[in-house]
C-alpha cells in the first residue's frame, strides 16, 4: 500500500514547496485577468496587487466578481487570459487547488465550511501543514511540536475550551473562527477570507476584527466583506470591484465620498452605516 502511495506521489506532480519570493514587497499579482461564463464577463481585465503582510478589504455589489476572483487565485477557475503570480516566481495558473493550498494560500468560504462530524481538534489537525501527503494519512502520529501548533491556533481563535467538541454543534460565529483557524494550521502566507462576519453578533464581529488585524503583518490577508462598519474597523486599504474590474482603490473614507462608488452602491445605501 505505502509503495503505491509513494509511487503515486512520485508519478503525479507532487509540487515541491517552493519558497515564496516576495522581495519586491508584493505577494500576489493579478494582471489583466479576464474570465467569462457563456459570454458574461465575470472578471474583466482585472489587475490587482496585494502587498506582503498587507490587510486588504475588497468590497463591491453582488455579481462584482469577488468570489470568482478568489476562485481564480485558488485554482478553482482558470481565467481565459491574464497572469496570476504568487510572489515573483510561482505561476498560480499552472497549479491545481491542492498545490496552491500547499504553497501557502488559505481560503475561507463564504458559508462556514468545517467538517461537522469531527471535533474541533480533528478539524485543525486535518488542516495542519504537511498532513496532506498520502503516506502520512495512515502512518503519522502527532509530534509534540504539532500538538503545540494546534493548541496555539486553538488559543488564537478563542476555542480553547471547545477542542473536544464536535464542530457541528459550534455556534455560527465559532464555526467561522474554526475555519480561520484551519487556514492558520496551513501556515499560509496569504489568507483569502470570504465574508467572515456574515451572521455574527457585534461582539463576535469585534473579536473577528481583532483576529484578522493580528494576522496582518505576518500574513497577507484579503477580506471580502459587505459590512462597511467591519471593513472600516480592520482595513485602511480598500478595493472596490464592479462588473469584474477595479472601480476604485484607496482609504475607505475617501472612497465613501467618491461619486463613482456612490453611484455603484446607489440603492444599496444601507450598506453604509
Amino acid at each position: 500500500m505505502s509503495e503505491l502511495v509513494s509511487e503515486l506521489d512520485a508519478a503525479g506532480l507532487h509540487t515541491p514547496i517552493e519558497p515564496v519570493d516576495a522581495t519586491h514587497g508584493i505577494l500576489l499579482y493579478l494582471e489583466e485577468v479576464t474570465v467569462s461564463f457563456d459570454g458574461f464577463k465575470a472578471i474583466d481585465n482585472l489587475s490587482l496587487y496585494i502587498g506582503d503582510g498587507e490587510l486588504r478589504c475588497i468590497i463591491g455589489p453582488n455579481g462584482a466578481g469577488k468570489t470568482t476572483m478568489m476562485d481564480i487565485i485558488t485554482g478553482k477557475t482558470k481565467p481565459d487570459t491574464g497572469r496570476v503570480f504568487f510572489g515573483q516566481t510561482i505561476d498560480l495558473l499552472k497549479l491545481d487547488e491542492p498545490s496552491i493550498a500547499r504553497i501557502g494560500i488559505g481560503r475561507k468560504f463564504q458559508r462556514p465550511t468545517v467538517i461537522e462530524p469531527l471535533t474541533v481538534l480533528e478539524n485543525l489537525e486535518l488542516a495542519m501543514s504537511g498532513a496532506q501527503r498520502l503516506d502520512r494519512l495512515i502512518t503519522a502520529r502527532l509530534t509534540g511540536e504539532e500538538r503545540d501548533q494546534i493548541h496555539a491556533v486553538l488559543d488564537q481563535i478563542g476555542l480553547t475550551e471547545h477542542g473536544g467538541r464536535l464542530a457541528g454543534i459550534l455556534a455560527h460565529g465559532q464555526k467561522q473562527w474554526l475555519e480561520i483557524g484551519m487556514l492558520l494550521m496551513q501556515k499560509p502566507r496569504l489568507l483569502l477570507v470570504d465574508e467572515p462576519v456574515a451572521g455574527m453578533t457585534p461582539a463576535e464581529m469585534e473579536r473577528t476584527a481583532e483576529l484578522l488585524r493580528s494576522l496582518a503583518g505576518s500574513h497577507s490577508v484579503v477580506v471580502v466583506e459587505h459590512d462597511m462598519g467591519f471593513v472600516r474597523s480592520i482595513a485602511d486599504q480598500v478595493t472596490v470591484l464592479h462588473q469584474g474590474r477595479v472601480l476604485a482603490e484607496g482609504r475607505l473614507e475617501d472612497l465613501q465620498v467618491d461619486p463613482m462608488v456612490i453611484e455603484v452602491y446607489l440603492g444599496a445605501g444601507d450598506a453604509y452605516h
Partner: protein
Amino acid sequence: MVSRTLFRAGLTGLASLLLVLFMPLPVQAADDEALRAALTQLREADFSEKAALVETLVGMDHPRVATILNALAESRLFYVTETSRIVIGLGDDVEIAIEDAITGEALGQAVKRDLDRIRVNNRLRSLIENQLASLGLASADPQQRKAAVEAFLRSPKPEGAARLKARLDVESDQKIQELLTAALALVDLTGTDAAARAQAAKALGGWTQPEIRGPLLRAAAEDSDAAVRQAAQTALAKTEFRLQMLGWAETLFFGLSLGSVLILAAIGLAVTFGVMGVINMAHGELMMLGAYTTWLTQQWLPVNWSLPVAVPLAFLVAALVGIAIERGVIRFLYGRPLETLLATFGISLILQQAVRSIFSPLNRSVATPDWMSGTILLGPLEVTLNRLVIIGFCIAVFTLLWLALQRTRLGLEVRAVAQNRAMARAMGVRSARVDALTFGLGSGIAGVAGVALSQLTNVGPNLGQNYIVDSFMVVVFGGVGNLWGAMVAGLSLGVANKLLEPWSGAVLAKILVLVFLILFIQKRPRGLFPQRGRAAEV
C-alpha cells in the same frame, strides 16, 4: 384520372371497361355470359382450339380472366360433371374446396371424382404465361403493370421483348418506363450483338435488384467480349455504390428511429433530472405504465383507434402516478439527490411487482394498428411505417414540450424554479405546486414514450429496466437540463449504435456506446451542452 386510365387500357379493353365503369350490373352479367360461353367451349376443344380460346379470353378484359387463366395453367380449372358449372379448385386432397370460376363465389367442398379437369399441355401453359404477362402489362393498375414487369425480370425471355417494347411506347408512368427499359436491357445483355450487350450493361448500372445484378455479375465475369465485361464492371461499380448508399441510408433511418425512442425516453428525464435535479429511477417504470395503458386501451377499443386514445390516457396515468410519487416521497428528499435515487429505485421495484401481480409476469402483445403496419417507400428506401410514425411522434412530443416550457405560464415558472428556486419563491411562484406539476409533466412524457415503445417491443414488467440506463446516458451525454442536448444526444447515440451494429453485433455495439459514454463523461463531466458559471455548482 379517368381519361388517363382509359387511354392506358388497350383498345379491346376500352369498350368493356367503359361499360364496367358506368353500367356495372347488366354489362357485368352480359360479360359473364360471354365468359361462360368461352369457357364452355374449352371443355370440348383440342389444344390448338384451346390456344385460340385463351386469346379470346385475354381479349375479354373481365376481372376474373387472370385468375381463371392462372388456374387453367395450374390445372385447377374443372367442370362439375353433373351441372357443367365451371369451377376453380383449391388444394390437392381428394376433397377440395371449389369456387365458381366466373363469380368467385365459394361453393364448399367437392369430391375430385365429381369434377372434370380441363387439361393443358406445356405449349399451352407457356402461351398462358405469356398472355398473362401481357394482361398484366396492359392492366390499368400501375401496381399490376409493375408486377408484370418484375415477373418478367425474374425469368427474362427474348420472345417477351416485343411486348415490353410495345408497352414502353405507351407507358406514361415514369417508374414503370424505367423498369421496362431495364427489362429490355436485360434481354439485350444475353443477345448476340456485342455492342448492344455493352450498351445494355451500361444501362443496367445502379439497379440493385438481384434479378438484374446477377446477370450483370455474370456478364462482368464471363462475357466473351472484353468491352462488354468492362461496361458491366463499370455498371456494377455504380450498383455497388448505390447499394452502399442505400445501406447507409437504412442505417441512418434505423439510427434515427432508435434515437427517437431514446429521446422520448430521455426528455421526460431531462425535465425531472435536468430542471428539478431529481434522479427518478422509476422513470422506466412510468414508461412501462404508459405501455400497459396502451394495452388496456386495446382491450376496450378497436386497435386502429386505440393509439390516439392511449396517448393522452398514458400521459394522464403516468403523470398522476408521478405526482403521487413526488408528493408522497420525493418532496421529503429535496437536496439529497443520492437518497432520492435510492427511494425512486424502490418505487420502481414496487411498480414492477405491482404490474407483475396485476397483469401476470408474461409479456403482453400490443397490436399495431393497420395504419402503422407495413412498409413505405421513402425515395428508393423501403422503411417500416411504425418506425416512421415513431420518429414523427417523437418530433411532435418534443415540439409540444418545448412550447409548453417556452410559452406557458407553468413553463415559465418551471424555468424560474430551475434557475433560482429561492428567487422564484420570493416572486410568488408556489414552488411546491410547480415541483409537483413539473414532475407530473416529466412523468407524463414517460407515459407517452411508453405508448411508442409498446409498438416496438414486448410490453412486460421489465420494459422500463431495459431503457433506464440508456435514457440516463442520453441525459448525461446531452447535458443536464437541456432539451436540445437530450435531442442531439439521443439521435447521435441512436445512430452510433446502429452504425456499430453491423460491424460488431448489437450487444457489443451497446457495450461500446456505454464505454464511450463513460469515457466521455470523464472529459466533459457536464455533458455536451453544460450549464456554466456559478449556477451550475449547486
